[in-house]
């Protein structure tokens, strides 16, 4: 690209930012509130996504544990996906000094915590299905684990509940290769969680005449591949044209100049 054009585009996108102290002060106070709003928003968004299932009357969906289960599942799969992308990006554009083993370890601790919450949710679902005394609910869960889609259920269980437990070992938690492999397992596991929730609950109905097996159409496969294409196009464009680490944010948390941090 012509250098002049590139500069014009970046100048336009920088909105006339001059780094004025007053602007930074306003920016800081705004960021704090936006961050405070974003955290409960995560809870709200995933709770409502789970309501899409939970407010229906389909056995396997009509569950009160869905909101917390989806929230922890979202944090769990989100961290795994970020780790997958981050580990490759870190190597590819040499961010070894910025993203360290300490960051990796902290993220992996979140993965164990949320992965275990998800594991408890799976077991609670089974318990509640049994305890409810409702035969349709009980059938839905027995069918999930031992019916025609048993393989999907056990892939989900292994990838989401068993593999993240390896992070209890410090060596594994601090290894980029091991983390990368386990994060892929978590991605697969969380994909199968959606598959299990949707497909195994729908392929059986109250009337056996509506029973069937699921086969994706070419449109469904196309949309699935398309989402990958869209995501990676935007992701690659972002890392190619924009700074991947906001250095101003990294610098500001170092607190080099605040009165109380200056060594007297």
């Amino acid at each position, binding site marked *: 690209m012509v250098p002049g054009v590139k500069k014009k585009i970046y100048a*336009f*996108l920088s*909105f*006339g*930012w*001059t*780094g*004025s*102290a*007053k*602007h*930074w*002060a*306003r*920016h*800081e*106070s*705004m960021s704090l*509130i*936006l961050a405070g*709003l974003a955290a*409960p*928003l995560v809870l*709200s968004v995933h*709770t*409502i996504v789970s*309501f899409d299932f939970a407010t229906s009357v389909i056995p396997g969906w009509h569950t009160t544990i869905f909101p917390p289960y989806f929230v922890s599942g979202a944090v769990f799969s989100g961290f795994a996906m970020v780790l997958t992308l981050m580990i490759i990006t870190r190597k590819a554009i040499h961010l070894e000094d910025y993203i360290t083993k300490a960051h990796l370890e902290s993220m992996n601790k979140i993965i164990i915590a949320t992965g275990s919450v998800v594991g408890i949710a799976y077991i609670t679902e089974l318990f509640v299905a049994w305890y409810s005394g409702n035969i349709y609910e009980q059938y839905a869960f027995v069918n999930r684990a031992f019916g025609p889609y048993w393989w999907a259920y056990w892939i989900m269980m292994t990838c989401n509940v068993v593999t993240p437990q390896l992070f209890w070992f410090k060596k594994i938690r601090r290894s980029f290769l091991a983390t990368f492999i386990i994060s892929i397992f978590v991605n697969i596991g969380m994909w199968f969680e959606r598959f299990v929730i949707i497909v195994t609950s729908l392929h059986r109905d109250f009337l056996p005449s509506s029973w069937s097996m699921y086969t994706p159409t070419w449109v469904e496969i196309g949309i699935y591949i398309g989402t990958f294409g869209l995501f990676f196009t935007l992701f690659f464009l972002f890392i190619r044209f924009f700074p991947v680490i906001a*250095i*101003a*944010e990294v*610098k*500001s948390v170092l*607190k*080099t*100049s*605040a*009165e109380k*941090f*200056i060594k007297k």
Partner: protein
Amino acid sequence: MKQKKIVSGYFTDDKDLIVAIKKLQARNIAIADVRTPFPVHGLDTVLKFKRSRLPRAGFIAGVIGLCVGLGFQAWVFTKAWPLNFGGKPNFSLPSFIPVTFELTVLFTAFALVFGFLIRSKLGPGSDAVLYDEAVTDDHFQILLDVKDSNEETMLQTLTEVGAKGIQTHEV
């Protein structure tokens, strides 16, 4: 258009910047602007900034969002189009919570972001002048407006406090 004359000097460390600002203030030289590559903590107290009113604007917008969200749902479900959902009450607060919360967040976020951009005169097509491009890299710049005091004193004081690259700009 009125000509504006600006004297600038920069530092390469934020600690030096704060020390220099204090010295300038002790000599009663008004500081027009300070430009830094990242938010320097403690700078706002040194420059005696008033607390930003953005949080207050955000809160008011949030309250408006809450009222709009709750009020609109209440109006729709009780007056405009009451529907019978299995004999449940038309005014059902628990089911209004998600939409109310999200509109509160939306209004607050819009008020904060647009309030910030408008108040700081930022946005596409902004005519802000960057006297030194390195303020987005490693320069901590002090700007002094010549109309505030004598230009000679300014240049001299900036040299005394250890500023580098002292320059005069006319805009």
